């Protein structure tokens, strides 16, 4: 059968509209069940004993003989029958430390008890004997490199470019940790099975990560593990890899105790122990012409990976691939290394290495403009990537490039030019105690996995027929972004059904095809497109069947708004045909595999080629004022223009942009992880501050729709695009400088 490409998808009544989100009613009534809302018969509660030192030889774990341990399950590394390794990229991170402690808060032992008060008391009676070793806490002093990258873009011409430049600008930029601070902490429940396997319920982004981790840990077969995602109260990357750790701990306790074990992290434990955004030190050296034209760059990025590899190689890869920003560079040499320190491992957080490197390049552009006494907006406009330009990996941009369009849109909407002039006058006035500033920044974000990631993963997703419509089959998780709803919209349009006729199957690894992890702004673009393709195939099958039953020509039949019609004649409602098929021919299930567009290739050795099939683009204007006496910053207005390709659900798309923008504002202005001797001092919401409703202004969003020809309906990934903090600092600079 000929398979139409996604280019042939046509919008029906759902795509481009904003129907009520499928889980909306449950969420506003309190009926949505998160992990901690569930009670499992016979459940006990689990807790983790952790290291308090950042680096040490682990001599042993002792349980106080004077304490009454009856009814308390105890697990140490010695109890592990399978591999004591959290399955991810490298086999270096244990579920429970055995001989060496490599970071503070590293798990050392586990306890479970039905009585939570006794459980808390028991924690104080476990003694971890260590012989401290000197920790490495400064990434610039680390000698252990997890991974390094080099992008060489006509670098043989670098020296010449620097020699003929009107100006060489240098800058060093530093960004620190950021905590995801999802409002629902990590939470799982492991339920032991009679076959020696485990059923794991939990708050997570990537059920198959947990599935693979548990197989190795428990040394059981694929069929003996089921992982079910419960309604998840935020992730932002923080529930990409860490749930494998929590799930493993609960499973170890469940296997030993023979009872369901619930582990719900306390807030302070979640902040202290789980992954954060990678800190980075970034050095820029730029050759530039007097008129602001960028000639060449040398960029050096060092990221702090923490104690174990986790996702650091991929974070650093994405970081280095975005380090040159949304600009055209005739010559570039970009190096990045991610190193080990004795701090809790850093990991996935919305943007995944990009907010760090975009921050640095945007700061550098600002510095260039200042030194050349040019308007920074003009420097950005002059150098912004356009269709046909090449990125530093030699990727020729063939479609969907909107850097200039986004810049122009926010410049106009924010009144940038007038305000810049007016603020300069006001700020210079004698006695001005509030200085105002406005700044614009530019960003891009590669959609989907880096390089050959999607081609290797071969994501599978599909649909199956129900008596009244269809059910979407995937393992992709809704963590708030609205996955369930956009999947239903796309399936509905492909089938000619109203959105309420579409159900979404429960996210269960034992029954769903592996559509891959819910990360990398890939879910709508990659999995959504695959679902739409499967729904088209299901539709063709049913149209033929309807034609057969009603004596019409197969090619004439289509389904519109839930009714099969042929040449204007109504044949039957969808449900009638569906029920007849199910009765006469049995289940109908179509699962498709994602096909990466041809010609989009990337060489992972030379780091040359098309790193991403397409990019999201954004420009943001921030207007703020600074109190000249107290240095207090007040945000006055934010305008952001984001090219999303196609807004499948405009309200959800705006929700991603507004939410991501406010996270970035938080990173820039409020959020700071404070360390002492390798441990975090501010592990609570009282002292790690995220923005409240009164800390942030109205965020005005301009949706730009420049279609990606291989995305469903032209859509491309946008979830991470707004997460960069650079925008805000540009405006502060402007205000402080009195400009």
């Amino acid at each position: 059968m000929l398979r139409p490409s996604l280019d042939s998808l046509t919008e029906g009544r759902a795509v481009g509209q904003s129907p009520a989100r499928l889980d909306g009613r449950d969420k506003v009534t309190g009926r949505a069940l998160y992990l901690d809302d569930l009670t499992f018969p016979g459940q006990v509660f689990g807790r983790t004993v952790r290291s308090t030192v950042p680096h040490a030889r682990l001599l042993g774990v002792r349980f106080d003989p004077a304490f009454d341990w009856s009814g308390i399950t105890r697990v140490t590394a010695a109890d592990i029958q399978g591999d004591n390794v959290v399955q991810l990229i490298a086999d270096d991170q244990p579920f429970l430390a055995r001989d060496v402690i490599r970071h503070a808060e590293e798990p050392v032992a586990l306890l479970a008890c039905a009585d939570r008060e006794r459980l808390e008391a028991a924690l104080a009676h476990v003694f971890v004997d260590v012989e401290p070793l000197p920790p490495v806490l400064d990434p610039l002093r680390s000698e252990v490199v997890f991974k390094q990258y080099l992008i060489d873009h006509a670098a043989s011409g670098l020296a010449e470019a620097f020699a003929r430049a009107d100006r060489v600008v240098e800058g060093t930029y530093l960004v620190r940790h950021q905590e995801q601070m999802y409002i629902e902490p990590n939470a799982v429940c492991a339920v032991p099975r009679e076959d020696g396997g485990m059923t794991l319920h939990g708050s997570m982004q990537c059920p198959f990560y947990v599935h693979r981790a548990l197989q190795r840990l428990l040394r059981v077969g694929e069929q003996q593990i089921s992982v079910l995602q419960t309604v998840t109260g935020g992730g932002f990357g923080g529930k990409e890899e860490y749930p494998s750790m929590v799930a493993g701990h609960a499973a170890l306790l469940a296997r030993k105790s023979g009872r369901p074990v619930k582990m719900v992290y306390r807030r302070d434990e979640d902040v202290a122990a789980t992954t954060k955004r990678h800190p980075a030190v970034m050095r820029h050296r730029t050759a530039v012409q007097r008129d602001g034209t960028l000639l060449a760059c040398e960029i050096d990025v060092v990221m702090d990976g923490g104690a174990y590899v986790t996702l650091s190689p991929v974070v650093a890869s994405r970081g280095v691939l975005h380090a040159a920003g949304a600009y055209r560079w005739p010559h570039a040499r970009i190096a990045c290394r991610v190193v080990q320190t004795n701090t809790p491992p850093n990991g996935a957080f919305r943007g995944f290495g990009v907010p760090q490197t975009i921050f640095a390049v945007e700061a550098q552009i600002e510095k260039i403009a200042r030194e050349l006494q040019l308007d920074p907006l003009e420097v950005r406009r002059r150098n912004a990537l356009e269709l046909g330009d090449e990125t530093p990996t030699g990727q020729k941009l063939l479609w969907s490039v909107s850097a200039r369009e986004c810049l122009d849109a926010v410049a106009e909407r924010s009144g940038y030019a007038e305000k810049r002039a007016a603020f300069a006058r006001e700020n210079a006035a004698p006695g001005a105690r509030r200085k105002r500033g406005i700044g614009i920044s530019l960003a891009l974000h590669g959609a989907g996995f880096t390089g050959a990631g999607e081609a290797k993963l071969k994501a599978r997703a599909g649909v199956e027929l129900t008596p009244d419509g269809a059910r979407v089959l995937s393992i992709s998780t809704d963590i708030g972004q609205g996955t369930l709803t956009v999947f239903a919209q796309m399936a509905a349009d492909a089938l000619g059904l109203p959105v309420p006729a579409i159900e979404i199957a429960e996210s269960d690894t034992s029954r769903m095809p592996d559509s891959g992890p819910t990360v990398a702004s890939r879910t709508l673009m990659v999995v959504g497109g695959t679902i739409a393709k499967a729904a088209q195939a299901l539709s063709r099958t049913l149209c033929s069947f309807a034609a057969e039953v009603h004596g019409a020509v197969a090619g004439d039949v289509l389904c519109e708004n839930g009714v099969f019609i042929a040449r204007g004649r109504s044949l039957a409602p969808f449900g009638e045909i569906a029920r007849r098929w199910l009765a006469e021919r049995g289940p109908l299930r179509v699962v498709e595999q994602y096909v990466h567009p041809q010609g989009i290739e990337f060489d992972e050795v030379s780091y040359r080629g098309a790193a991403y099939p397409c990019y999201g683009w954004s420009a943001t204007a921030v207007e703020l004022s600074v109190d000249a006496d107290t240095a207090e910053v007040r945000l006055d207005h934010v305008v952001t223009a984001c090219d999303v390709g196609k807004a499948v659900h405009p309200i959800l798309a705006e929700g991603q942009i507004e939410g991501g923008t406010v996270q970035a504002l938080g990173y820039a202005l409020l959020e700071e992880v404070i360390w002492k001797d390798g441990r975090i001092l501010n592990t609570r919401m009282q002292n790690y501050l995220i923005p409240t409703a009164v800390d942030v202004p109205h965020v005005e969003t301009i949706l730009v729709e420049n279609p990606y020809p291989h995305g469903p309906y032209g859509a491309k990934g946008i979830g991470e695009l707004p997460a960069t903090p650079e925008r805000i600092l540009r405006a502060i600079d402007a205000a402080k400088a009195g400009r």
Partner: protein
Amino acid sequence: MTVRLSMTVNGQPRTAEVPPLKRLLDVLREDLGLTGTKEGCGEGECGACTVLIDGELACSCLVAAAQADGTRIVTIEGIAGRDETLAPVQRCFVEQGGAQCGICTPGMIVAAQRFLDSGAEPSDANVRAAIAGNLCRCTGYQKIVEAIQAAARERGGGA
């Protein structure tokens, strides 16, 4: 040691036999089976456990069970009508994108309902002040503010 609590919860008389220092949050969730009220921090910062006690907003994680004896409590389960019709503010949250991951939503809606009942002018500043005790990490608050303003407009008899 336990105490016997008598409360009116969402208009119904309810009793519970619990330790006097048990958190009201846990009484609601464990003893009364009302799991719509969520825990995000356990220290009164996030507001996910917000309920109304005698008409005033409170973080139920900071209230000892004994303090709740004899009070009237409204939780998220008490906001919709008896016939399960969504309250206007709930419907506006669904329509305007006010809920994403949803974990802050019950507390947020209780706070929003209290604001609407106060009859205050639904200006951007007033609405933001009314939900300043409720943290949301997903939405950036914009759509929450818009949902509350839409509900206020309906209540005002407008379109």
